[in-house]
């Protein structure tokens, strides 16, 4: 009973009108308009934090928009994932929604099992899954367990789940993030096949070359807003990159002066293994001088997180060496790295950065709390903690300026200021900043940048890990690019351009 929408004669597969979604402290989607026609592959691109995933959660009904309207095939979507899925929307999540110790067939049929009301007809399920797989070239053993499958195969299970439910509008959230090149090509082939079959694909990514290779149309999001929606033949990689990154920020502070310091942080042939047992770092070597910022660019998930963890002692390297000054760090605990003057602005501040139920004062001394003047022997000096907090609060403009306020109640930007203040107060020899401006507004971003530059002028060796090329180009003295756990090139700032870095970021060796 699909009645054509009165307001929308061209009948779009998906339409969003002025969708706005706000989280505490973050305007994730700001008045978004989106139109996806039947039978097209529509890419949605944007940097991390641009609001892509929020938008898709709104579309799938997992989140409810604060304002605006979402239409799926002309029918309004109102925060009911169940109904939305029955209307034909299928989601392939970035983090796979698969039960690891279930078989392929069990995962595919879950919630929609064949057979009578009671009996579970696994054989029919396996047969159905096998047939479906053959139809779309998604060959999988229906009886295989998910935990024994590769990431690419797991993704195929996700696509099978969606097809099994008869979805004809399929959303894929960052589907290539975890795939090998081979798997990526196979995925693209599958998606083209699905579109030929009359389905509509929405494809979220921040890889521009994928957009150019695959999609018919592209919508660009930046900081929660749609900045452009273009047919693919009307655009090119450079335009999209510029739209995605944007240039509306006024000129921030720039680096001044040459780097003259000695190499303070030296990493040679470092290897490390991820939780999944994969080679996360594969022979990484670089050095950072005192008074230098080394920008580390790269698509996320290419080993950056593991690198930061090994450089702070939270992950034990499987090989290679990290030297700080003239000391080898072999076998060091996180505390020893700390004592040696390594400070870190972590990627996820709520997980690694702050203790939210602690006060600002407590957070500001965390990691230094065992030292004088904050501890005298076993006893904390609350007065000294408060004095330190007051001075850091005013230096770094933390709001509200009250040491006894719980960090849990602060905005994201102020939480980040607490982290930055604490780490810089350590007077670090080596500063590792992982995505230090993620989720921050312009003021917060400029503040973080000026802090990094100040540390640079004070002689710290700074490793700036970021997927934001603009940030890296603004601040880096040299720029290294990481791809699949290897450094594919290190360029002086003068030689680095977005184009060159872009090539290195997809693995072209220099």
């Amino acid at each position: 009973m699909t009645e054509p929408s009165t307001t929308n004669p061209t009948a779009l597969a998906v339409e969003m009108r002025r969708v706005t979604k706000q989280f505490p402290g973050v305007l994730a989607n700001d008045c978004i308009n989106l139109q996806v026609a039947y039978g097209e592959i529509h890419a949605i691109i944007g940097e991390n934090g641009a609001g892509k995933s929020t938008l898709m959660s709104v579309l799938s009904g997992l989140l409810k928009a604060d304002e605006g309207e979402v239409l799926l095939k002309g029918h309004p979507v109102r925060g009911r994932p169940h109904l939305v899925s029955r209307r034909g929307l299928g989601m392939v999540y970035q983090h796979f929604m698969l039960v690891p110790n279930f078989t392929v067939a069990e995962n595919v049929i879950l919630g929609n099992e064949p057979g009578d009301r009671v009996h579970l007809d696994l054989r029919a399920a396996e047969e159905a899954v096998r047939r479906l797989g053959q139809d779309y070239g998604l060959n999988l053993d229906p009886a295989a367990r998910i935990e024994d499958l590769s990431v690419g195969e797991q993704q195929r299970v996700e696509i099978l789940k969606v097809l099994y439910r008869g979805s004809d509008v399929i959303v894929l959230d960052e589907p290539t993030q975890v795939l090998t090149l081979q798997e990526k090509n196979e995925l693209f082939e599958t998606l083209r096949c699905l579109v030929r079959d009359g389905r509509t694909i929405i494809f979220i990514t921040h890889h521009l070359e994928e957009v150019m290779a695959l999609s018919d149309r592209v919508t660009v999001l930046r900081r929660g807003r749609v900045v452009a929606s273009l047919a693919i033949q009307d655009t090119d990689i450079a335009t999209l990159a510029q739209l995605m990154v944007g240039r509306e920020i006024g000129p921030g502070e720039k680096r001044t002066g040459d780097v003259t310091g000695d190499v303070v942080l030296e990493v040679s042939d470092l290897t490390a293994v991820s939780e999944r047992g994969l080679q996360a770092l594969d022979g990484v070597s670089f050095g950072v001088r005192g008074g230098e910022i080394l920008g580390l660019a790269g698509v996320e998930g290419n080993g950056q997180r593991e690198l930061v963890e090994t450089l702070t002692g939270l992950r034990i390297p499987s090989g290679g060496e990290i030297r700080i000054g003239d000391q080898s760090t072999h076998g060091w605990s996180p505390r020893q790295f700390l004592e040696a003057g390594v400070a870190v602005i972590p990627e996820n501040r709520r997980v690694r950065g702050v203790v939210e139920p602690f006060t600002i004062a407590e957070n500001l001394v965390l990691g230094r709390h065992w030292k004088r003047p904050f501890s005298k022997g076993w006893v904390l000096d609350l007065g000294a903690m408060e004095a330190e907090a007051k001075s850091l609060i005013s230096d770094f403009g933390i709001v509200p300026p009250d040491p006894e306020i719980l960090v849990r109640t602060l905005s994201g930007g102020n939480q980040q200021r607490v982290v930055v203040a604490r780490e810089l107060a350590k007077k670090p020899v080596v500063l590792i900043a992982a995505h230090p401006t993620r989720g921050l507004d312009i003021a917060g971003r400029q503040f973080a940048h000026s802090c990094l530059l100040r540390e640079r002028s004070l002689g710290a060796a700074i490793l700036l890990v970021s997927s934001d090329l603009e940030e890296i180009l603004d601040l880096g003295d040299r720029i290294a690019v990481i791809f699949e756990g290897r450094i594919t090139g290190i360029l002086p700032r003068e030689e680095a351009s977005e184009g060159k870095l872009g090539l290195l970021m997809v693995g072209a060796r220099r």
Partner: protein
Amino acid sequence: MGDSGVALFFMTLLVSTLRKATPLILASLGGFFSEKSGVVNIALEGIMLFGAFVGAVVAQTTQNPWLGVLAAAGVGGAVAAIHATASIWFRANQIVSGLGVNLLAVGATIFLCEVYTGGQRSFMLSVSEKLPRWGPFLPLVYIALLMVPVVYLMVYRTRQGLRLRAVGEHPEAARTMGVDVQMTRFWAVVISGVLAGVAGSFLPFFAGSFAKNMTNGLGYIALGALIFGRWTPWGALAASLLFGSADALQEMLQGRGGVPSQFFQMVPYVLTMVALAGIVGRAIPPRALGIPLRKE
């Protein structure tokens, strides 16, 4: 001991083991349901105690043991529903909630026992003789054994079973597939309570009386059997038999010197810890055990 003495010893041991294992089997199957769905159920102990008391009272009052078992099943389900409601909808800490049920069970059964008997903390069960014997055992023993394949089929061969397991392993995935995570968990916990309630009702029938706090840790042993059996029905059966045999041996060897009976009593507890520590192959709980569903 002669050959016949040895044979007699082992026959007695076997019979006694099965008797001791019967409530453990049922209660650990109950625990299996709940924990497979992701809800920690240390309330088994309290539910069994409720089942023991209510089963005894109803059987004694109506002079029909089967009505007693039925009532125990009902009260077990009802008490489990309290734990389920707290843990699922009020997102209570499942351990605290379970402890609350256990504390309540100790108090309430004595309280009600005194009300029922007019001040006594135990009472005799004249009705237990009315239970038929099938061979050496009460029918309850066979029921417990039969429940093992029944539970296995329910959890591994039905649609609801598939959903139950999905909810205990990856509730978010189940939710995106349209499974009602909370209701699935609720019914799993209620079934868990029904089984534990019935398990509890066996105790006064075997003993011929109800006494205060008569579970005395049996619910925790059942939980241990579930863990030692690696969260599978057949494993729980095997572990229940093992723990039951320790208890049976303890009783048979009491007063004969040799290994003190208290060491047999420790066996289930120590083995459970060993299984958890992974000293001999690690027991892996359902991944989402104890984690409430987050809807945002």
